[in-house]
């Protein structure tokens, strides 16, 4: 075996906090071999980012670090900031999570790349450094690098900025690139581009990559070896194929079971891991996962299990005393996680046409004027956020709208929630047209039928109101008698799986998943017919996300709700939705039954979107063909005469010139089997 580039032994990191000493990393050891990719997976608070920052020497000064980190034969721990700065950015480079904030806003991207070059190479001339910067930008796929090198970060989109960050990381041909959730903040099509690019960077520089992520799909896509972290420790460590095929530690099994799959049609309920990770303060000497583990035995609490080789295989180690008993997610022939029961609805037996519509949207349009001038606003153009969208939702049905950021999904939702009268169309909620609403009373009456759950469970609950008040607020608004409010709040808390006794607490006392449940309880308070969900699970960790998705599924059946669901995560959409619409630049490009659309995508954009999602299965992932879209979403202010997707369309490239003219000049309409599966492409 070759000498590893990076070798971490028994790394510990702790921080002082008001609650006591937080042991964020508790004895992690691993090696990264040259040219290989190590994936570190875990949920928030598992210590994966702290590990990477400890390697880089970028932790806060109050962090206590122990153990040993050897990079390229040198011990890094104990080096001073000045000594470390010689290594950082030179042999050891890092890509951060949020490209929007990781570039300094007041310097050009060229300046920032040049700085990375010259700081380690003082003899390099300015000229040579700028030339190299242009070359690097070209390498990471920035069009017209000669001009763009003088642009400022705010002139770039998120994906392009992440390319610049990667260019900086590649600048000095590092031996190891640490990527900390490099694609989490990006859309799927951009994520695919960036993952490809990290592969390219690795080939160009021959570097090893340490990829930190919470996304099992990304790991399956890119990693050679995987470490799963939980509560500051590695709890399973194996080659990527072994880990996915022969998972041993119950937590890893749970993580895999908790993610919805975009490539699976059958609707099996997801398997959530109950509870939440422990606080890393004064941990007892016991398995930290025992409290959440479905197969925990008394021995689990006796001592913390060590990371030991599974059945004598050196390259597969797990920290579970029952690892030997577990085979491919089964123990004694039973699944480790019992599959929860999700009731089926009587409504689903009814054909779709016979069910009553809860929401009908006809030709919904929203434009924002662009104005100029300080006193007298002159209109100089408009942003066409939503362009003539039509759909309906029937009782007990979930309709999902998917698309990249900026595609107009949220604007569509807000128009419906605003009861915005349409000039050339209509919005009808349970049969009532919004144009018929006159006065506040009628509006409040209709408002009972439509409620919303927001994306951010932290921001959407007033921190100064108790949970009781949060849930009671809509009840009071619709003038529910005071005597009925108390029992109703208890009922709602119970319905979403929270203890009604906790209703006098403030939102801060609850975890992210629990807060989202409070948000759902609030939405259900007025017995709505339609619940609008704006990315309800995207801010949650996967193990928690599964629980919330199951809850939504269950509520739909029990209460006969309809959902309008907006998400960018297609796996979640496939799992939860009955019907789906793919949105691009303010319009639907494909719309239909979820299985029809996902199994037989027609529009080139849908195909690209679906193929861009990494699936958590390394064997399949290797054989899948990813359609990588070039470029970004065009600006919605542009006047588009034909198909809006023309600038990025892979199909368009293969057409002959006459056919291309049609794409450029004629707006495609939704055609196909109406009501079942339609798409807006001239040649599909």
């Amino acid at each position, binding site marked *: 075996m070759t000498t590893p580039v990076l070798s971490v032994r028994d790394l510990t990191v702790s921080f002082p906090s008001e609650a006591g000493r937080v042991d964020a990393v508790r004895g992690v050891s691993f090696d990264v071999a040259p040219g290989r990719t190590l994936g570190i997976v875990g949920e928030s608070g598992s210590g994966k980012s702290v590990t990477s920052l400890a390697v*880089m020497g*970028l932790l806060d000064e109050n962090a206590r670090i122990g153990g040993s980190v050897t990079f390229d034969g040198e011990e890094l721990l104990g080096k001073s*900031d*000045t000594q470390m*700065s*010689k*290594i*950082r*950015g*030179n042999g050891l*480079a*890092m890509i*951060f999570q*949020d490209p929007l*904030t*990781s*570039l*300094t*806003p*007041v*310097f*050009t991207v060229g300046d*920032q790349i040049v*700085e*990375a070059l010259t*700081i*380690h190479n003082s003899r390099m001339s300015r000229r040579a450094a700028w030339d190299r910067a242009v070359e690097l930008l070209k390498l990471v796929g920035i069009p017209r690098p000669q001009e763009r090198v003088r642009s*400022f970060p*705010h002139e770039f989109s998120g994906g392009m900025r992440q390319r610049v*960050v990667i260019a*900086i990381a590649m600048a000095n041909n590092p031996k190891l690139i640490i990527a900390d959730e490099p694609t989490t903040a990006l859309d799927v099509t951009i994520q695919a581009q960036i993952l490809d690019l990290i592969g390219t960077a690795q080939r160009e520089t021959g570097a090893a990559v340490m990829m930190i992520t919470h996304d099992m799909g990304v790991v399956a896509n890119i990693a050679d070896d995987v470490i799963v972290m939980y509560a500051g420790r590695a709890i399973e460590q194996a080659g990527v194929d072994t880990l996915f095929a022969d998972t041993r530690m119950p937590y890893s099994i749970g993580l895999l079971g908790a993610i919805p799959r975009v490539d699976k049609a059958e609707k099996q309920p997801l398997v959530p891991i109950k509870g939440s990770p422990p606080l890393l303060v004064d941990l007892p000497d016991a398995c930290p996962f025992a409290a959440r583990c479905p197969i925990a035995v008394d021995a689990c609490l006796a001592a913390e299990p060590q990371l030991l080789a599974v059945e004598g295989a050196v390259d597969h180690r797990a920290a579970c005393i029952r690892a030997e008993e577990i085979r491919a997610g089964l123990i004694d022939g039973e699944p480790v996680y019992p599959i929860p029961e999700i009731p089926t609805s009587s409504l689903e037996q009814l054909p779709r046409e016979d069910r009553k519509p809860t929401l009908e949207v006809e030709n919904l349009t929203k434009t924002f004027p662009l104005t*100029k001038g*300080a006193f007298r606003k002159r209109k100089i153009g408009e942003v066409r956020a939503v362009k003539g969208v039509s759909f309906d939702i029937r009782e007990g049905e979930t309709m999902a709208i998917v698309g990249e950021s900026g595609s107009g999904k949220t604007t569509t939702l807000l128009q419906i929630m605003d009861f915005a009268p349409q000039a050339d169309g209509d919005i009808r909620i349970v049969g009532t047209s919004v144009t018929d609403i006159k006065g506040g009373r009628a509006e409040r009456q209709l408002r009972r039928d439509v409620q919303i759950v927001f994306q951010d469970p932290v921001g959407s609950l007033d921190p100064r109101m108790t949970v009781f008040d949060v849930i009671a607020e809509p009840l009071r608004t619709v003038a529910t008698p005071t005597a009925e409010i108390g029992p109703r709040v208890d009922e709602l808390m119970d319905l979403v799986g929270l203890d009604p006794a906790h209703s006098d607490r403030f939102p801060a006392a609850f975890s992210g998943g629990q807060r989202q449940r409070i948000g759902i309880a609030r939405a259900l308070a007025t017995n709505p017919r339609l619940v609008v969900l704006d990315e309800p699970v995207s801010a949650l960790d996967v193990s928690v996300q599964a629980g919330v998705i199951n809850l939504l599924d269950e509520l739909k059946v029990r209460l006969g709700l309809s959902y309008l669901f907006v998400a960018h995560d297609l796996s979640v959409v496939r799992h939860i939705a009955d019907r789906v619409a793919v949105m691009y630049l303010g319009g639907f490009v494909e719309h239909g039954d979820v299985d029809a659309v996902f199994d037989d995508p027609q529009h080139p954009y849908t195909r690209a979107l679906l193929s861009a999602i990494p699936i958590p299965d390394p064997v399949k992932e290797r054989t899948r063909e990813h359609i990588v879209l070039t470029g970004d979403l065009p600006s919605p202010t542009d006047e588009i005469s034909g198909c809006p997707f023309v600038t990025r369309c892979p199909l368009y490239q293969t057409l002959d010139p006459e056919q291309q003219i049609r794409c450029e000049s004629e707006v495609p309409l939704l055609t196909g089997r109406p009501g079942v599966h339609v798409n807006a492409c001239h040649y599909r």
Partner: protein
Amino acid sequence: MSRYLLRRSAGWLLMVVAVTNLTYLLAWAYLDPRSNYVGRRPPLSEQQIVNLLEPRNLDDGTPLLERWWNWFSSILFRWDWGVSPTGQSVNDQVAYRMWISGELMLGATILLTVLGIALGVYSASRQYRLGDRVAQGTSIITMNIPIVVAALGIVLLAIAFNNAVGSTVFYVTGSSSPGVSGFLPTLLDSVQHIALPTAALVLVGYAQYHFLQRSLLLDNIKSDYVRMARAKGLTKAQAVRKHALRTSLIPVTTQVAFSIPAIFTGAVLTESIFAWKGMGQYFIETISKNDVNGVVAVAAFGAVMTAVGAILADIAVVVLDPRVRVS
């Protein structure tokens, strides 16, 4: 950019004109030049008073509209801001006093800005350590000393120092000594006069920039791009200096730009204590002497300076922050 500035300047000009006219009317509602003569011994007759005031456009017997037009048209056509009840030209006073104030305030403003920013950087990079705590504690105390107390304290110290040395090193009143000539002697004399008021102004004024700079820099030190700069290979000090400081200076600069008007409009109390005949002192004087034209000129001057400060702040932001583009 120049078109934008032109448009902004035009807007501000309108504002200044409106404010000045409004002040003129208000000043007449509250100030009464006639009362300057009422208590005279021997008493002046009504006709004598009118004869004194009328040619100076200060007689309230003349209808207000006429007075206003006389005043406004003489500014508009001859740039003549009128005279005080005693016949001094307002133009001369402002032209002379504005530089006295400038001399005093410019140095003080530069010093207190530099000191404040430097201390801000120092204590931000040592957050919660001893140096930071001492610097913050000191600033809280100095910030809360009234300028009068600070000035008088400094005067007492300076007198004690002069006595101890046995010669007058620091002058405690006036902006210059009479009868000094030659470049070097004049310079030395100015420094001897200016040292004490400057010290007083800096002492009470630097703390605002200290706190502002400290908190802005702290926000930026924790930002992702400073971490990114360190990941590129800059040491922490380099990353803070190059990446955090530049961005955190933007809001400080706007604040400094807005304080520039104060340089020329003067510091009322400091000028009174140290007997500098600057704009601040003029302001008090004109009000107490019912000098309508003088008061209005001071207000107009202040308005113009505010406009200048605002436009300077705009320019500074555009120069420093590439994200801001004017249209």
